[in-house]
């Protein structure tokens, strides 16, 4: 019987969609056709932006493994599932209305509805990147929207209800990510103020990182989390770090939105910062704990990548090195001192790495940015423009404040309606079995 209903849905579905298609898509499509000349865009830029989009998409599975290797064996599928769901749910949210809220002409705070359902988003030159078609710009940005909520997962891993996660991340994407994206990149007030955020220090890392802090605090500690906090599969974490490093070239160098000199410069900064941060973290551990660890090195690399993100297209190699070295010191302190001191349980250090890193990187952009590297940017304090540093501070802390407030409200809202945390028994059993009916590995065969 139930299956009959399915079959009906099957048959109904394409037709229903077609109704929508007829109603909505055709005008959009014709807009495409009309705008199609687009002689402006060249195949080199398109090629680079297509592969960059694919690289950023790959970062979400990369993150899934980076995180998944660190949790206990009984929770890895829970983490992988949350990351994959971000790929599914946010991709659709973005196409349906997220892109419009972020980038359609609107007020200083939020975008309008002009691009809803990708209406008016065709192959004409993109408003924010006339050298590529609008739809390609939208695709590239979609991958950013996907990974940002996935970053937060690290904070509440091993104890969040899956249903609550979906609703929470949908709301969060709409009410935190989309507005912030509009503020900084979509014509909003921070952009007008002159805030520089090359590839998402504010939009991606501050927002996700501080949301992580808030949720980690409110959801509370894991039960028994002293039992065996040892990562169940560190090679997976290293694999994830490798894929993240690889994908981050699309993230940062792709953010120049063209295969040009700024992309090259961003690519270089990215690699230098990652390398310097990885090495620094290892050295700190060596000094402090007697031996450098693989997990520390991988964490350092990711912290360096996150921190250089807002600065990557604006800085030279010395700025990149300074960012790389300092970020590992800062993040190491955050992970090793802040967390124990304030006793929140940020399972996988989403705040310590992305929140702190994003904040630090955004501020450092205000120090090291140089118009010699990117004439479209501004000079930072070290290049004689203290004003930019101020602007960066305003941008960063406005984002922090907004994120913290709205995330807390959203969390509480979801908690009232659904309950955010799984009950004790499910937590003890592990999310793989209790939330997904599955086991990651067989024990005997």
């Amino acid at each position, binding site marked *: 019987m139930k299956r009959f209903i399915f079959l009906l849905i099957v048959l109904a579905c394409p037709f229903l969609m077609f109704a929508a298609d007829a109603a909505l898509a055709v005008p959009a499509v014709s807009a495409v056709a009309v705008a199609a000349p687009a002689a402006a865009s060249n195949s080199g830029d398109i090629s680079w932006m297509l592969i960059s989009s694919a690289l950023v998409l790959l970062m979400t599975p990369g993150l899934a493994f980076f995180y998944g290797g660190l949790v206990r064996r009984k929770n890895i599928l829970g983490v992988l599932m949350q990351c994959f769901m971000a790929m599914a749910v946010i991709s659709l949210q973005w196409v349906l209305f997220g892109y419009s809220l972020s980038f359609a002409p609107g007020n200083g705070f939020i975008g309008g509805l002009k691009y809803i359902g990708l209406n008016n988003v065709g192959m004409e030159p993109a408003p924010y990147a006339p050298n590529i078609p609008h739809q390609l710009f939208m695709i590239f940005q979609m991958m950013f929207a996907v990974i940002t909520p996935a970053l937060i997962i690290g904070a509440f891993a091993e104890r969040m209800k899956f249903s609550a996660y979906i609703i929470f991340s949908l709301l969060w994407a709409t009410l935190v990510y989309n507005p912030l994206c509009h503020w900084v990149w979509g014509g909003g007030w921070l952009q007008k103020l002159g805030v520089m955020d090359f590839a998402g220090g504010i939009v991606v890392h501050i927002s996700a990182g501080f949301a992580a802090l808030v949720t980690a605090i409110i959801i509370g500690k894991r039960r*028994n989390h002293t039992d065996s906090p040892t990562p169940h599969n560190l090679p997976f974490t290293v694999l994830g770090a490798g894929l993240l490093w690889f994908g981050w070239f699309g993230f940062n160098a792709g953010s120049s939105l063209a295969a040009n000199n700024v992309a090259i410069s961003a690519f270089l900064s990215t690699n230098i910062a990652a390398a310097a941060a990885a090495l620094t973290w290892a050295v700190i551990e060596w000094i402090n704990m007697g031996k450098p660890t693989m997990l520390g090195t991988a964490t350092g690399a990711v912290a360096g990548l996150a921190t250089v993100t807002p600065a990557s297209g604006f800085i030279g190699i010395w700025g990149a090195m300074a960012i790389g070295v300092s970020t590992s010191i800062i993040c190491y302190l955050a992970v090793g001192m802040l967390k124990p001191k304030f006793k929140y349980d940020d399972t996988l250090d989403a705040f310590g790495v992305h929140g702190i890193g994003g904040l630090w990187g955004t501020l450092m952009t205000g120090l090291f940015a140089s118009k010699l590297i990117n004439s479209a940017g501004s000079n930072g304090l070290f290049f004689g423009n203290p004003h930019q540093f101020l602007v960066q501070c305003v941008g960063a802390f406005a984002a922090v404040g907004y994120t913290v407030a709205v995330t807390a409200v959203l969390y509480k809202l979801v908690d009232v309606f659904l309950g955010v945390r799984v009950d004790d028994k499910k937590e003890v059993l592990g999310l793989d*079995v209790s939330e997904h009916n599955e086991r990651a590995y067989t024990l005997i065969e």
Partner: protein
Amino acid sequence: MKMIIAIIQPHKLEDVKQELYKANVNLLTVNEVLGHGRQKGITEVYRGVRESGNLLRKIRLEICVNDDFVDATLNAIMTGARTGETGDGKIFILPMEDCLRIRTGEKGKVAVG
């Protein structure tokens, strides 16, 4: 001399170890096993196929003690492992004839501890 074998819930291992240390029982051997008991198995689903995995993950402790330590050991395990719900597990007590410490070649009572 006895060999005490206990099957417990995985998440109670830390508690059991703490209780054992309090009771001055410091030597033990542990491994992971699958158990079928009264506890309801877990249903797993793979591509729509339901599978009642009736084997649950448990921890097996093997503790060899001299006779005067048996009660203390049993109590420690009971205290540490009990939640009051099915699946808490069992303790089995087996007679043991002798024990050798490989490093020193010591035998008997002195080798156990």
